């Protein structure tokens, strides 16, 4: 039975941690079936997705086009397996559909396509476009005096794209305080570590100079994720960016920190190993609250 928003909208931390484990399990199973796709970012952002869809966002899986819903925009479309897994877990569509990822006739395209699947708010894949799309939504909300918020996730590697900075400059100038940008700061991109390929630091100073309210959090600490999102609602005159420090491939030891897992799926043996690790957390209980 799909979990519903009502049951989970204010899910507590142990529940959210459990959901994050379930989402990671789904991701491994989906990527194994698909035989291609992006492991590292999908696993690394599972805690953020759990916190967003089961605590932070005002969205209703049974009314996905509610005009007053919060919007979530994914800019780094390649990590859509975690978005799909989360939407299914939240009840936007059946979980059984997850195994069709990247297959012919599927609604679960290799990169997200607006209009294909309930809950998908934007089209992305080519990097750098999502923040602009989110700004357009924030601008529309301000023009309409609507109170919903726009959340946008980007990767860190896509800050190499000039469009991201065009967007950052505009949002800061326009004082879009209904916009929360969550950056998955996992320090990897396809060709290596971000600071080796194209150094981004000092990120906080750069974004502050662009008139953003900057918070840095542990992207695996659910409480910090929720607090940072809530805090961004209180910021006036500035858009907010949450730099979420994450571990790529989080919770699957042989994938963690390895940029080689950016765009690779596990094979059968690796998936079995990963699932074993996720289900037992190396023999530990899933949550300290258990």
């Amino acid at each position, binding site marked *: 039975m799909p979990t519903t928003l009502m049951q989970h909208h204010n899910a507590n931390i142990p529940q959210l941690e459990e959901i994050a484990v379930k989402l990671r399990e789904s991701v491994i199973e989906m990527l194994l079936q698909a035989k291609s796709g992006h492991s590292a970012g999908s696993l690394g952002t599972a805690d953020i997705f759990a916190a967003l869809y089961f605590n932070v966002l005002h969205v209703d899986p049974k009314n996905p086009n509610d*005009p007053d819903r919060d*919007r979530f*925009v994914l800019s780094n479309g390649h990590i859509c397996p975690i978005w799909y897994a989360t939407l299914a877990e939240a009840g936007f569509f059946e979980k059984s559909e997850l195994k069709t990822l990247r297959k012919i006739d599927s609604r679960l395209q290799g990169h997200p*396509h*607006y*209009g294909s699947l309930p809950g998908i*708010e*934007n*089209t*992305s*894949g*080519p990097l*750098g*476009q*999502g*923040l*602009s*799309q*989110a*700004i*357009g*939504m*924030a*601008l*529309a*909300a301000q*023009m*309409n005096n609507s109170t919903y918020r726009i959340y946008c996730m980007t990767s860190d590697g896509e800050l190499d794209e*000039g*469009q991201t900075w*065009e*967007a950052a*400059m*505009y949002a800061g100038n*326009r004082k879009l305080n209904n916009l929360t940008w969550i950056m998955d700061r996992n320090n990897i991109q396809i060709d290596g570590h971000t600071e080796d390929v194209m150094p981004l630091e000092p990120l906080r100073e750069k974004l502050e100079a662009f008139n953003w309210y900057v918070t840095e959090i542990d992207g695996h600490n659910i409480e910090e994720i929720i607090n940072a999102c809530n805090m961004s609602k209180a910021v006036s005159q500035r858009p907010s960016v949450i730099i979420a420090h994450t571990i790529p491939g989080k919770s699957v030891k042989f994938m963690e920190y390895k940029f080689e897992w950016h765009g690779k799926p596990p094979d059968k043996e690796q998936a079995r190993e990963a699932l074993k690790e996720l289900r037992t957390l190396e023999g530990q209980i899933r949550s300290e609250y258990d």
Partner: protein
Amino acid sequence: MLNQDLKLSPNIFDTDVEKVPTRFGYGDGVVLAGEKNSEIVVLTADLAESTHSHLFEKRFPDRFAELGVAEQNMTGIAAGLALSGKIPFMASYSVFDAGLNWLQVRTSICYTNANVKIVGSHSGFSDGPDGATHQALEDIALMRVLPNMTVIVPCDYEEAKKATLAAANHVGPVYLRLTREATPHITTSHTPFEIGKAQVLMEGEHVTVICCGPLLRSALQVANRLDARGIRCDVINCSTIKPLDSETILKSVSKTRKVITIEEHQISGGLGGAVAELLTEKMPVPLRRMGAKDTFGESGSYDELLEKYGLGQKAIELAILEMNKIGGRFATGDLSTDVPGEFKLV
């Protein structure tokens, strides 16, 4: 003989007439559209006045956004606005908002099927003195190839105004191609306009001349002169390049069996390309495509550039005369040469 039903400008063949750029038609049209529909918003990338978007800014300051010189961001923002129920018109020069941001147009607008109207001004040779960097001669091709996109090239101020209003009512992405140079009126406020509908402005049985944009007036003037010499042309205003009005074109071509396309664009991929695709599949007949022949432009006045790049009235006249010599259904020989060729009937 001019088609009286279309209520065209009475001064169409006069030489000393009022001239207004098509971009002014958009500027006035988008204000009218904005008055009718409060969801219409206008974005520009540091070209508010050049594109005449400043008229909308003055009238509806809260529904206007200045993005600075950032066309990629403008494209994404337009998509986000559209996904929130707005109808954004994003205006810049064609080279910038149908070129620099092509992948954003493809992903954020067309693949998303976002209801965004891209307004590309200063297209073709109309930005003469600025030179090749600013003369968009490839934009129709770039926009036409994208699924979900509608492409409109108005011929004058009135048609641009009507096309702007029609684009506002059309659900889906539209590319509206405009020009910088002031050009004469061809149509009037009473001339009908419909997206996807080509119009036969002048009727004749010898050669079909298909045109888009302000060059249409040259085509009409040449056709009028040749009419007196007994060479009669169908002159078609094909202001919607996509979807192409194949019915009107094929009906004309089935009569004339000879076609010339005229546009301020590369001869590949634009109007000529679209017509070539249609004719090759449905009605293979001799076709001459007039436009830029795989070359960039350069600085010069608008008229000088048209002359130099083979789009002056003399060149159009020569092309019609040559095509008129070709009889029959099929022909061999190089029909794209500027030298009157030896065309053999099959």
